[in-house]
């Protein structure tokens, strides 16, 4: 196995290339500008390589929209404020059911915030960052090596589900250099008969499909959807309404399928005194917290969500069964607690420790916070 010592940013960039993504559009922002710096020379290795520094994140995400519509694997990468500017485009991408990859190397906020690593965009990433109530398949690696594997997987799932996928990481993993291997990456692609590549010997393709509904095109409507709509409203088909309904029903169905088939997680340790829940960078610190707590006589286990949308709710419920208390650790003010609460039910006490000003929480700091909370029988939520 060949291993390279690489920063998270650069390993991520190389992983996108290895995944067959040769289309990058982006705008510089700390702490992840090295992604685009790396790709600026790396994509020149490919005849179909497209690298473009856009005038803004707004333009960059719309260029991704164009490249994805044209059937290419396409991506962009940014951080907090830049991701906010991309939310309009992400809503359109979700609505148009276009596959692409967006990485958020999260920094602190709100507003300008700072460039230190943070997880303060959890709610934006897992709910509907832009308008319209869509969701994005979101993967949260905790090591540079895992980021490489999840990046390749993200492209596959984006195409499988026809959805934008996101890598949710932070400035710490972006800047952390670790040994990483690109061997044995499983690159899976899906056909794109829907792409707008020029109507060469075929009927035209239109993106987004639902936008093109017209009274004269009702014959193109799915009869099942027409029947369902009729049952709900008692009325006959009104094309634009049915198309809007169909899009949202399609998306809802897609998100249910994702929750069933794509939730990913890891359970570390088997202690029953306490269940720690943490994702991303802070989860690997929490692995060491398990040892620290063991030194205090507390036998704990760690549940690490790898997908934060879909949230591995059922798996967390199983991991929490028979454990007295749950303690959530995040690099924010507790944005994941709602998801944890939904998973473990109302009865189980949930404690929390987190910091919001960026940077890594240390093992002893987290350990002392937990033992203190246990001693006080403190319940956060």
């Amino acid at each position, binding site marked *: 196995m060949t291993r390279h010592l690489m920063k998270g940013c650069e390993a991520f960039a190389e992983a996108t290339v290895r995944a067959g993504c040769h*289309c990058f*559009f982006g705008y510089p922002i700390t702490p992840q500008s090295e992604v685009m710096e790396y790709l600026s020379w790396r994509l020149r290795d490919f005849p179909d390589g*497209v690298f*473009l520094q*856009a*005038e*803004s994140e*707004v*333009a*960059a995400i*719309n*260029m*991704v*929209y*164009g*490249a*994805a*519509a*044209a*059937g*290419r694997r*396409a991506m962009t990468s940014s951080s907090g404020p830049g991701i906010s500017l991309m939310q*309009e*485009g992400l809503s*359109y991408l979700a609505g*148009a059911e276009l596959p692409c990859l967006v990485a958020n190397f999260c920094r602190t906020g709100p507003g300008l915030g700072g460039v230190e690593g943070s997880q303060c965009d959890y709610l934006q990433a897992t709910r509907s960052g832009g308008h319209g109530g869509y969701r994005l398949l979101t993967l949260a690696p905790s090591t540079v090596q895992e980021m490489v594997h999840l990046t390749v997987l993200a492209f596959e799932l984006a195409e499988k589900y026809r959805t934008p996928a996101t890598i949710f990481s932070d400035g710490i993993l972006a800047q952390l250099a670790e040994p990483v291997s690109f061997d044995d990456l499983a690159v899976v692609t899906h056909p794109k008969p829907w792409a*707008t*590549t*020029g*109507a*060469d*010997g075929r009927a*035209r*393709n*239109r*993106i*987004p499909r639902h*936008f*093109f509904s*017209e*009274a*004269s*095109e009702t014959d193109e409507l799915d009869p099942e959807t027409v029947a369902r709509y009729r049952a709900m409203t008692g009325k006959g088909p009104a094309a634009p309404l049915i198309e809007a309904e169909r899009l949202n029903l399609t998306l809802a169905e897609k998100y249910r399928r994702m929750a069933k088939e794509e939730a990913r997680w890891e359970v570390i340790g088997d202690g029953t005194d306490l269940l720690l829940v943490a994702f991303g960078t802070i989860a690997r610190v929490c692995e060491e917290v398990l040892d620290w707590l063991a030194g205090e006589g507390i036998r704990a286990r760690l549940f690490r969500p790898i997908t934060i949308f879909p949230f591995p709710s059922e798996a967390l419920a199983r991991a929490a069964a028979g454990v007295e208390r749950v303690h959530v650790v995040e690099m924010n003010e507790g944005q994941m607690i709602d998801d944890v609460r939904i998973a473990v039910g109302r009865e189980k006490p949930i404690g929390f420790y987190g910091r919001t000003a960026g940077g890594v929480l240390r093992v002893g700091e987290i350990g002392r916070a937990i033992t203190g909370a246990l001693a006080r029988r403190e319940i956060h939520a």
Partner: protein
Amino acid sequence: MPDEKKDREAPGAVQEASGKKPGSLLTGVAFTYCPGSGCTHGSLNRLLAGIIGELGIRSKVILVGPVGCAEGIVKYIDVDAVEAPHGRATAVATGIKRSLPDRVVITYQGDGDLAAIGIAEVMHAAIRGERISTVFLNNTVFGMTGGQMAPTSLIGQRTTTTPFGRDAQLSGMPFHVAEILTRLPGTAYVARTAMNSTANVAVTREAILRALEAQMQDRGFSIVEVMGICPVGWKMTPRDANTHLSDQIIGEYPLQLFKDCVGSCDGGTGDGQVGPWTGDGGRGPQG
């Protein structure tokens, strides 16, 4: 430009000149532009459908639609089409063209979409010299949302957000897109035409052909700013609207071929102003 008096005709004449011709790529989906209003979008959509059909490039064209009244076009022309977010058509087109450099990528945008919310995207597409062509219908108003002021509205123009007329002190001066883009070395073809007469429709047709030629010759960004009418938004009859276009709007926005790098170029200095239309079929003095 052509003799205004002689060529000034009711919009009906425009419709005739740009009606569906053999080989046109209209889909047959009924236009939803304000019916019977004389709205220029209908005739400009027909014109563009005819041009793409005539050039025989259906298999290569990807059309990018805007948000606003003009968004209808993606339904009406039988080519691969993508609907962009408001103002972002040239960014979306950039993504498509960079991905598929041998295709012909066309954006169709109104003046709210292009000159207000989308000005950064169009400026930078032009700055980069993207090989895309933009058909820009300027009717000096936001049509779809009910006739609000656009950056292109004339001083004194009454709209639903300037009920006392556009005031320069409050809202600035009318924005001249073609003149600004002409100064950018990345633009290969810049023209302003109008749809107020049969002769000017013919000039518009020639200008769009030339803009597409600039793209196919890999020269740079090309744009045709087409001055049109929005009788419903302006609260005028079609005939009065056409007169307003001919008498007032074209006074503010002169019809002109600003830059033409098809075949050869002035070196892209941005000084490529080549003078007013001569009415010779649209090529201008350098044609």
